[in-house]
């Protein structure tokens, strides 16, 4: 159990200010162990995406967000630091929920971050980098003959893997994935899951997911948020088989029933559960 901690939060609170104040996260302490895949689960609007985005200061680009508390990468604060935000975001990569190709060729999408940071010696060096990261996400064979075509021409599943390659190419320490399979058809989702599976021994991955099944299949650790508060975090096996808190028990049970009910309703649930990008509304009625 003595696992190195790559990333942890310290009393992290996020409030959306605006017409009305919404406390999306209320003082969360959570640890993300190194070279493990941690899944963040919880009902819609519980602050999953908010937590994820505050882990690499993506809230900086919005004006109506207050972040307090701290996030520590390898023991050092990413908020109270001289290190510029772009460098922090290079070390803590982020893949958004919607497959988002940059308006560039397939090649340039992977090379984008590498070129910005100047982390290559020559053109052939860059070519090798691009190839190796495309291989890493199992995309190389599918695109090797059309590297110069616009990335937008790929299927959404391929684009999502391309996004993973783009993020990995700048050699982050941590990779944040926001429901990366929720916009995909089942087969593409499976490919992306396989990719994550193969990456998780090498990278610290934090993944938001709405699917209990996915968490169970992929994750080493599970973090359960409810209404902006941490309910429980544990390794996947203990979390599902021996939940410590009543709320976790009912959430796990509720979802298990829903998920054995039939796959089609589950698909719809997935749609309904995707979070609004900037102002999560507490789900409680």
């Amino acid at each position, binding site marked *: 159990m003595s696992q190195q901690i790559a990333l942890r939060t310290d009393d992290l609170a996020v409030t959306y200010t605006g017409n009305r104040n919404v406390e999306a996260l209320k003082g969360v302490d959570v640890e993300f162990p190194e070279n493990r895949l941690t899944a963040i689960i919880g009902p819609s609007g519980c602050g999953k995406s908010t937590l994820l*985005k505050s882990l*690499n200061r*993506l809230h900086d*680009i919005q*004006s109506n967000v207050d972040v307090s508390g701290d996030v520590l990468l390898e023991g050092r604060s990413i908020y109270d630091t001289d290190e510029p935000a*772009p*460098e922090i*975001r*290079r*070390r803590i*990569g*982020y*893949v*958004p*929920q*919607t497959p*988002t*190709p*940059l*308006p*560039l060729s397939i090649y340039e999408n992977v090379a*984008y*971050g590498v070129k*910005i*940071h100047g982390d290559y010696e020559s053109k052939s060096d860059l070519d090798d980098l691009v190839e190796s990261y495309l291989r890493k996400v199992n995309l190389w064979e599918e695109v090797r003959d059309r590297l110069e075509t*616009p990335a*937008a021409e790929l299927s959404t599943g391929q684009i999502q893997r391309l*996004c993973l390659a*783009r*993020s990995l*190419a*700048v050699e982050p320490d941590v990779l*944040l994935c926001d429901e990366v399979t929720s916009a995909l058809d089942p087969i593409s989702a499976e490919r992306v899951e396989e990719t994550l599976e193969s990456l998780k021994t090498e990278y610290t991955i934090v993944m938001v997911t709405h699917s209990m099944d996915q968490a169970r299949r992929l994750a080493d650790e599970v973090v359960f948020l409810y209404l902006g508060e941490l309910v429980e975090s544990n390794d996947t096996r203990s979390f599902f088989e021996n939940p410590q808190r009543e709320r976790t028990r009912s959430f796990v049970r509720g979802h298990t029933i829903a998920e054995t009910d039939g796959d089609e309703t589950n698909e719809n649930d997935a749609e309904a559960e995707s979070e609004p*990008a*900037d102002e999560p509304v507490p789900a409680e009625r």
Partner: protein
Amino acid sequence: MEESIESGDADRRSDRLGRRLLVERLSSYWLRGAGYFAIGLFCLIVLTLVHRSLPLLAEYSLVQMLTSANWDPSQNQFGFLPAIVGTIYVAALSMLMGTPIAILVAIYIAEYAEGRLKVIVSSFIDVLAAIPSVIFGLVALLVVVPFVGNYLAPAVGASATGLGIFTVSLVMAIVVTPFMISLSVESLEALPDELRESSLGVGATKLETIRSVLLRAAGPGIFSAVLLGFGRVFGATIVPAMLIGGQTQMPDSLFATGQTLPTLIVSDFGELMSIPITQSALIFVGLMLVVVVWFFNFGAMLVQRRLRRRWQY
């Protein structure tokens, strides 16, 4: 008894259905008619212009008219070149001055300005866009013309009264820039936040994100904003008429007075429309304007569609 009530209900319902379907069908005719009306109007205008241009084209060589610098309707000299050159100068110069500023301001409003400041800046841009262009002409007569005539032109060694191509271009740039800004802001703000997050998420700075990702993704929209601005400058009438000096000659410098195609029509149509061949010449100028502007809009649409299909934003 009950049955007859029920059948009465059914009759009423089917009557009603019949009427509803009739209204439905008629309204589709109406609406289609309204749509075709727009097309018909355009065709009518073009046909009129063509028809009324024919007398001129029958009598004089088109190539000769387009390349001759001699415009003197009273002597039956119809050289369009000075007005064509003037129009191109004005359009090119105002776009050169207006486009970079428009794009910079649009980037500021869409990506940098926050909160109240953003609201204030963008509402001022909208107010500017709503000012009738004749007001710009008036203010320019009081401010820009003396400035150009007394300071700017002498500073670069040109003698000028202040009226002329440069002044018109400057003022037209000011007139169309707010439009280009509004349209460009719209296309930047329409981009999904995921695009920004994807770029920032690999460690790009804000400026790098804007330069290599956002401007490219919003490119089709910004491009069409610029072309629409171009079309407006091309067809602008009142500002050039007030400020260009109204002399139909080949401009020998940027500060020279001159003529554009619209001002050629405006300055001559009062007295000379009574002479049939001159009338025909001015109408031909109008035809050229319509064709060129139409080409630009059409080209803009094609390029925009191509770019959009390529990047899918």
